[in-house]
């Protein structure tokens, strides 16, 4: 139990996928302009991350490793993620139109989100068990959502600031703000080790 908790806390705070490991930077910078779209994107990422892990883990251990074709990992995983996202999109469209309306637009973005592919590969290289992998992906998704929502709040205030030098407007000032947010997340390093020894 403590093992699972420390894994989750680590990926949410100290090893945050966006702010410490630089995974999923594109949506982090692209979809964080407004708070509500940040929440939608974060929720969609949690969903896809858990689903992708739930499918890729058994495929790695039951098919790729059994047949000795572990080298196909990259190709197989990206195809699984791409088709999963497509499948989820179609299912939501057909059976849950309200949910599709709020999450659907973000789903195609997630196919090429390196946080999802990175997570599924990480779960294998770290040697997590199936349960640990699932919780790790929930944690990674929550960490992603947290970073996105915090950053959206910062950006909404920044947009109204008119004192930014011209060459810093747009992307550069956004990156500097991200740097400050990442710095505040560094504060957590050591906390997880301190709690769980």
């Amino acid at each position, binding site marked *: 139990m403590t093992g699972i908790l420390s894994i989750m806390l680590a990926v949410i705070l100290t090893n945050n996928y966006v702010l410490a490991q630089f995974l999923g*930077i594109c949506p982090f910078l692209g979809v964080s302009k407004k708070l509500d779209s940040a929440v939608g994107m974060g929720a969609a990422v949690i969903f896809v991350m858990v689903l992708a892990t739930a499918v890729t883990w058994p495929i790695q251990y039951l098919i790729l490793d059994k047949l000795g074709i572990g080298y196909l990992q990259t190709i197989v995983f990206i195809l699984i993620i791409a088709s999963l996202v497509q499948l989820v999109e179609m299912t939501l469209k057909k059976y849950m139109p309200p949910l599709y309306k709020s999450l659907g637009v973000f789903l195609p973005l997630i196919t090429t989100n*390196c946080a999802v592919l990175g997570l599924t590969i990480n779960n294998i290289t770290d040697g997590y068990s199936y349960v640990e992998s699932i919780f790790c992906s929930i944690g990674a998704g929550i960490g992603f959502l947290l970073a996105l929502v915090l950053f959206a709040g910062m950006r909404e205030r920044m947009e109204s600031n008119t004192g930014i030098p*011209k060459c810093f407007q747009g992307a550069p000032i956004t990156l500097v703000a991200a740097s400050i947010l990442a710095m505040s997340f560094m504060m957590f390093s050591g906390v997880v080790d301190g709690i769980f020894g």
Partner: protein
Amino acid sequence: MDKKTNKLAVFTKGLIKENPVLVLLLGCCPTLAVTTSAVNGLGMGVSTLAVLVCANIVISLLRNIIPDKVRIPCYIVVIAAFVTIVQFALKAYLPALDKALGLFIPLIVVNCIILGRAEMFASKNGVFDSLLDGLGMGLGFTWALGLMGLIREFLGSGTAFGIDILAHLGWTPAGIFMLAPGGFFIFGILIAGVNFFSKDGAKKEFSCEGCLFADTCNPEAGDSCDGKEAKA
């Protein structure tokens, strides 16, 4: 003559005018993650360059065979195959670099520069042009990553290509530049510098050219983007 200058333009546009990292702001993840030293940055750049050139050639060769509807999965398979080759080549011949780049080698698959070039250039142009385009874009990516790696390495650990510099001057390097905040910060400053020196000094936003989903992601920039996928 005219044709020759055209070919030259295809090659050189990626180097500076349409530099994928500093001007188009593509491929942010590896740019931020692996540039803790100049060597790592250059290594990542060259790996990406190799994949980009090979994928561009193959996709250009197959451009009349791949059905339009399933083109994205086809591109991904081609790219993933070359990424796997690069991954194994690095493991065999440069194990230290492979360890330093780690997860970001398989993640070349989802680097939007490569998918973007496949969609925007290789699928519409001949083999030789696609080769030149891949070379130009890849070299632009490589030097940008190398430069950023050099700056971060110098400020963060006081060395350049592993050679001690700051230590001789008796200065203590600021380790934070090697960590995540330093990465964001230096990238921001670099882009601001490019903005300062570029003629129009235009305000830049993230994603856009080459990103298949730019419409969903960044609707304001959508007009200049190829957002077929998101609209469909």
